[in-house]
């Protein structure tokens, strides 16, 4: 079994208060990282995801042209889909072809490939409350066949509040470069699994945010990466069976 290490982490969230509250290093969409043409054609969800992805790759100094990737999001292009759904009751409305192909769940993955000229495999996954946990599991299992690096991006934008409130009250994206190579300052994470004995003592503020911004489920793992602290169990979701990874800094 290959060990999996976290090489870098990046966060993109337009709400500074949330970044401050959880002591997260990050900011709003970085326009310098996305060419103007692509910025015009893409939604907020793709822009926050690409900002976080680019920053994580820059920090890890990986070759994005060869990097496989996993894009995990509960709702993906929800605003694009919403706009199209609003046109459907009118038989005379003509849908925009660009909006249509931008409504697929792997839109961000597709633009990421175009931006980085990367022909490696990319996946777009979704798992409601377990989206981050399943994204990490998918990336982890990909690294069992391929020694190397992989990009994991987890994100959701602001949603219309008639869909599934409070999901989508806050836009939040994060990205990780994971690797089988321990190099530099990375930390090792074990295979994600359900830990029946896991109990979170101090979770209310974080849980409230995760209900609004599913990708914020990654915050405990991000904080552990910053602090390089030995911690037994890091939760990856907030409800149902709790998926956890063990973090190990002594190797």
């Amino acid at each position, binding site marked *: 079994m290959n060990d999996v290490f976290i090489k870098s982490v990046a966060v993109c969230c337009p709400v500074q208060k949330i970044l401050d509250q959880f002591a997260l290093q990050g900011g709003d969409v970085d326009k310098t990282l996305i060419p103007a043409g692509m910025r015009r054609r893409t939604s907020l969800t793709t822009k926050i995801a690409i900002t976080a992805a680019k920053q994580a790759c820059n920090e890890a100094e990986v070759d994005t042209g060869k990097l496989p990737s996993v894009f995990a999001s509960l709702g993906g292009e929800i605003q694009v889909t919403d706009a199209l759904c609003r046109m459907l009751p009118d038989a005379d409305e003509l849908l925009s*072809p660009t909006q249509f192909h931008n409504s697929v769940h792997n839109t961000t993955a597709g633009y990421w490939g175009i931006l980085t000229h990367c022909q490696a495999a990319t996946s777009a996954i979704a798992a409601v409350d377990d989206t981050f946990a399943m994204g990490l599991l998918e990336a982890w299992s990909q690294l069992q066949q391929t*020694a190397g690096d992989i990009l994991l991006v987890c994100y959701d934008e602001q949603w219309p509040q008639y869909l599934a409130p409070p999901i989508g009250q806050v836009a939040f994206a994060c990205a990780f470069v994971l690797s089988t190579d321990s190099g530099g300052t990375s930390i090792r994470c074990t295979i994600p699994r359900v830990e029946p004995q896991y109990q979170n003592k101090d979770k209310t503020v974080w849980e409230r945010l995760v209900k609004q911004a599913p990708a914020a489920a990654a915050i405990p793992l991000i904080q552990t990466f910053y602090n390089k602290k030995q911690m037994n169990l890091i939760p990856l979701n907030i409800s149902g069976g709790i998926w956890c990874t063990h973090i190990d800094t002594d190797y």
Partner: protein
Amino acid sequence: MVELVKSIKPVSITAYSSISGCGLGNQALFETLKENKSSLAELELFEIPFSTYVGEIKEDLPGIKTELEIYNSRNSRVALAALNHTASGLREALEVAKSKYGSHRVGVIIGTSTSGLYETESAYGVLLKQGNMPDDFHFVTRHAYQATGRFLQLELGLTGPCYAISSACSSGAKAIAAGHRLIDSGVCDAVLVGGVDTLCRLTLRGFKSLDLVAKQPCTPMDKDRKGISIGEAAGLLLLEKISRDNSMPKLLAVGESSDAHHMSTPHPEGKGAVLAMQSALQLAGVKAELIDYLNLHATATKINDKVESKAVQQVFSDQLRCSGTKGVTGHTLGAAGALEAIIALITLQHQFIPGTHGLELLDDDCNLQVVKDSQSKQSVNYAMSNSFGFGGNNASIIFAL
């Protein structure tokens, strides 16, 4: 940087089941393919402002049990029909796997492009009229991408990993790839994988906006092809750790790649498609000459078929028999990768090669051995299936007896 070492062990396919415009069950699919008969007909499920042929499921679908009513969508009912089809032995095989390995060791990974969007579309009609969604609107359990996978997991009482892959028309094939990896990496002992997609207004009108929908039933690889015919389907497969019982067909590998070119137009030289096929062969440890049959993605749009022809020729020269089956089933989008994987398995099981319904005169750009009429009594030991989706997302699967 560590040297790239890519390998994966084969897994067994213990059971598989399907439903499509061809009917319920693998036998119905086999017989329609054998007769090379099209299931395409004018759309009846709902109204759209233009006429088109679709592969629509006409069977009565089973109901969802009361406890899981919030998961009730056409997508879930179509999946349940395939799951429950007794002759396939799928549900029974899942029960066996559950007791053999434990419910937490069995995963569920379902590919879909639009999940329960069909129900959401109706809810938007209410929203626009009344200003709020109807009371029975359940976005997370009906429309969210994972909804159908979660429904199957709950229906079967499984507790392992469960997620959706949604990469447009490669979703079903990528779900098979993800399930394969979960077994190979020791996370699961068995995984229910596949693809489920159902007809909806957004997809039909969206493809129409791209000018890709044919007025008549689609004609893959034909010189005069006019675009796609959309279909709906569920294709479900149970992958398991390889057992001593060698009679089960094996999944050898899924090769995956990206075009990195355009969101809805393939790379003009088929670079991504070539990479996916080559990667599948490399991962499987199989030489191109060994493949006996390729189920083409062949959507019947001008550009897609042209690019796929070029790509297949680069990898296999003109030595490989192939066919496109979307003239029979329609393009079942997120389910296509799984449905056509099942078609590839049927070629192994029945030692036959499907034809290409609608093909009259092969396109000059296509220098492949495209089989027109189905052929029985063939020798098929290795079969491959291609799936390519929006975003330039490609997957090629290899199965062996």
